């Protein structure tokens, strides 16, 4: 989110404090040190991770501090993974799988690249999934694993560092 606040001591701390109060986690603070000379205000961009449903609360708290919110850009899905599936993807009616993952609400498929050699040959596909959290990503991958097994597809996953 992009915030505008008074260029006076203690303002930035005052603006950050409500974030931890609502259980948010600050990922980055971009502090632009060129205050607007006319308004004596300062622009600050904050990247944060917020539990579901706390945003309204945070907005209210920030307003109480006299901080003006210029813009809130919500990137809901943070985690991204790509897997490769090999097999008769088209013949096995795969669209229901996409629906299954999307309908969970916590993860969605954002890209599908497919190559189909000849009609009866196995196709190869790269599927990219985005999810809100690591757990949600794992849940989405579990759906893909289960479906791959049912449909005799070979699923190739990325190697995550084990520990």
């Amino acid at each position: 989110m992009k915030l505008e606040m008074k260029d006076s001591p203690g303002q930035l701390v005052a603006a950050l404090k409500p974030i931890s109060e609502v259980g948010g986690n600050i990922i980055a603070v971009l502090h632009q040190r060129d205050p607007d000379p006319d308004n004596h205000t300062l622009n600050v961009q904050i990247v944060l991770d917020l539990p579901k449903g706390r945003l309204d609360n945070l907005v209210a708290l920030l307003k109480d501090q006299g901080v003006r919110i210029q813009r809130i850009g919500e990137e809901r899905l943070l985690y991204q993974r790509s897997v490769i599936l090999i097999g008769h993807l088209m013949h096995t009616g795969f669209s229901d799988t996409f629906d299954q993952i999307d309908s969970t609400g916590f993860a969605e498929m954002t890209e599908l690249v497919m190559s189909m050699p000849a009609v009866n040959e196995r196709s190869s596909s790269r599927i990219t999934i985005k999810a809100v959290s690591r757990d949600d990503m794992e849940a989405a991958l579990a759906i893909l694993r289960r479906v791959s097994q049912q449909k005799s597809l070979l699923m190739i996953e990325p190697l995550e560092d084990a520990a």
Partner: protein
Amino acid sequence: MKVALIGLGSVGRGVAEMLAKKDDLGLVLTGIADSKSAFMDPDGIDITRVLAKKKKTGSCGDQHLSAADVIKKADYDALVEVTPTNALSGEPAIGHIKAALNRKKHVVTSNKGPIALAGKELRAMAKKKGVSLRYEATVAGAIPVMHTLEHGLAGNEILALYGVLNGTCNFILTRMAAEGLTYEQALMEAREMGYAEADPTYDVQGIDAAIKLVILANTIWDNGVKLADVDRTGIDLLTPDALRLADEMGCTIRLIAEANPKKRLLRVSPRILDKNHPLVFEGTLNALTLETDMAKQITLIGRGAGSVETASAIIGDLLYIRDRYVQRA
């Protein structure tokens, strides 16, 4: 220290040649056997002559003597067991190893079958008899995995491990990625280069890597896992398109063996890895990453097979035994 050598295939020949060449190691060969014959001399065998005889006639010694005779009767401190691996029964190697341990002789082997199938029993037996059973050469060829675990990382808790434990698969995947070859074409090339067996099943279906994973897991965690416990997928169903799709995102595919007891994970499977990942390299090399509590990540890379490379691991084990147990050199 006196050494008896059972098995004169590629590995056995490598060991014999290196013992002949490096005569300052204090290792004297007093017994030798191949599948058809055997030869003993308590004062030391003329290795060069025996190898020449083997080359000329196909047998290394006396046809009336066998490996069993050498193991039971020869004068030796350590037995080197390098007969061909049988992953199903482990024989005749298990019998050879037991017979030597019963005589309170140290044993060094490159044979995966006995260690994967009966490792626990054999280790217990060696302990009871007060001798050493070492098998550095069973996993990742020349790479000193066991020595690293035992000494370099002593005191560390090993949290997880993952690696490339089959050079044949790594070669095939390298060629598929580099040239856009099909699996069949790359396999044919591996055969021509002498990297793949006539029956490539053990390699390409991940069985070989899984056996090594079982040996590592049992050695590190003593958790009694077996080959059947490994969740295993090979590389024989991979397509050139799959490698291309990985390449498009700066990645490639490698056959990765991994174990993580806390996650109850024991798996061999093709995986997507960033091209800059330490486990991505070309050709027939092997590598292993160990995750530990103190040292964090340690990755070892090296030759995973080969006659002299495997002999390196075996001779390392022999010298360890010499220094630790046998003072006469």
